[in-house]
């Protein structure tokens, strides 16, 4: 039994890397997700449906296609990849940052959807009331709109995190499967199932995946309950 849960250094690395990738994918998605949610919920201009389609594209495209597009754009010779490497010193290709980017893109539609729904549920008359009390639009956003959206923001973050933990296709296409750098739980499990004698290790990592997923779901339930209780009582 102890042998079953004695992780090898490579397995530990995959677990920690998965958590790191999912965390940063979620954190970096939040500002962009909020911006997209506001644009889609409140924007009034031509081309909005085009943006809506673009945001939802990763949901319907085969993940391999998304990964390949990321490789073309953010690879070493890709236009965006060169820009980030030159000006910001960030390299995505075959790095864990690339895995985070792929996970973030794949989870983005889910996050935007949750945030947008909660924003659409915000009573705009409350925002007008805050305005009459002297709050400028930025203060209204910070003190009324965002707090009222909080359940949706939390739900979107958890969906994004969970999606990132499970991301496989886009990640392996974009940044490959390099142990210690881009090998996350799903890619590690996939590799283990492809080699003879990898069954026990695959099972261990599968168990870890299930536990982490369950914890994320419990956390999301608890957060949603607390947020709802705060508004209702």
């Amino acid at each position, binding site marked *: 039994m102890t042998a079953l849960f004695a992780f090898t250094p490579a397995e530990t690395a995959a677990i920690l890397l998965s958590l790191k990738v999912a965390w940063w994918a979620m954190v970096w998605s939040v500002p962009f997700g909020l911006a997209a949610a506001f644009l889609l919920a409140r924007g009034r201009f031509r081309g909005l449906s085009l943006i809506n389609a673009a945001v939802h594209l990763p949901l319907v495209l085969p993940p391999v296609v998304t990964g390949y597009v990321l490789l073309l754009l953010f690879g070493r010779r890709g236009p965006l990849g060169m820009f980030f490497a030159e000006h910001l010193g960030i390299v995505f290709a075959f790095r864990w940052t690339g895995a985070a980017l792929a996970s973030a893109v794949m989870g983005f539609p889910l996050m935007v959807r949750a945030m947008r729904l909660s924003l659409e549920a915000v009573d705009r008359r409350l925002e007008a009331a805050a305005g009459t009390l002297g709050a400028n639009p930025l203060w209204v956003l910070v003190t009324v709109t965002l707090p*009222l959206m909080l359940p949706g923001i939390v739900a979107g973050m958890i969906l994004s995190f969970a999606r990132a933990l499970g991301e496989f296709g886009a990640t392996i296409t974009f940044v490959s499967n390099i142990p210690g750098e881009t090998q996350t739980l799903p890619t590690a499990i996939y590799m283990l199932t492809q080699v003879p004698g990898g069954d026990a290790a695959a099972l261990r990592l599968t168990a870890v995946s299930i536990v982490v997923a369950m914890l994320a779901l419990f956390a999301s339930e608890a957060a949603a309950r607390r947020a709802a209780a705060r508004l209702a*009582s």
Partner: protein
Amino acid sequence: MLHVAVAHRFGDFALDAAFSGGDGLTVLFGRSGAGKTSLINAIAGLIRPQRGHIAVGDAVLTDTERGIFVPPHKRRIGYVFQEGRLFPHLTVRQNLLYGRWFAPRSRDRGEFGQVVELLGIGGLLARRPATLSGGEKQRVAIGRALLSRPRLLVMDEPLASLDEARKAEILPYIERLRDETRVPIVYVSHSIPEVARLATTLVVMSEGRVAAIGPPEAVMSRLDLFPLTGRAEAGAILNAVVAGHDAEFGLTRLAAGGGELRVPRLGLAPGAAVRVRIRARDVMIALTPPTGLSALNILPGTVAEVAPDGGGPIVQLRLDCAGEALIARLTRRSVETLGLVPGKRVYAVIKSIAFDQHALAVPGPGGADADTRPG
């Protein structure tokens, strides 16, 4: 001093209204759809009129000719909405203090306590809006608007969503607000009892226009406005003084209109001013001083105006009772039988029971005798 002139067209509806209001409480009165809420939304800056000029005191808030439009958050106009609009994620205390972050600093540190005391909401501070009753929510909403230190308070039918008991609970607070704070109030209503109780100045609106403006006593006694002031509920407003109490029968005697009215006992000292609303349908007319009658109130007067209602069976009469106007609603048949024509001496008979709770109000300072009576 408030000056409002607004012209705005939304689809089929055209708002084209102008009025000036002074201190105290100005009621915008009219049916739903008359443009009352649009007008105060223009005052608060929630709609931008196509043409208009809005000024409160020295501050010009909207002037389309000069291209001035002050955004709502810089207007300092406290808005009490019909549905309260408390922030559900904040406690009552946080709701009350919300506007303070943005209001100009005050030296008066006791203000919060005063407002809380004025509105009787001290026991609610730690609670969330979802746990409050409708009446409590409205009191908190009033306090929140007041604590943002507005130069003007606008209230959009703050009692409309409440039942009679809750209305009776809040009305005294609005009276205190009118009498104890120096903030002028514009109050939207379609309720005659609220007008009679609260108004310093009455603005009657109809189809986007101002139909009449003046002290409520003068406006409510105009027969030509009856279609707008609500036939069934319409009636005159009399200014009266408490003359004494009749302890044995639990009545209060009021001196009004050249006679005496007996009303269910009021908790006021002799000499106190009272405003009495007498509905036109509660007034009977006699040619001689009646005897052997259960009604306790008989005011002598003369017929001042007879307004037949388009040849229908009902006729409105305006009586002059020692300078105060009284309105009676009779059948055309009675008017002809009694030979009621202007100048005729008559006796108005009013049942004491006609004075319900909402018919009696203490007018605010300057409320009863504002000097803007139309020519």
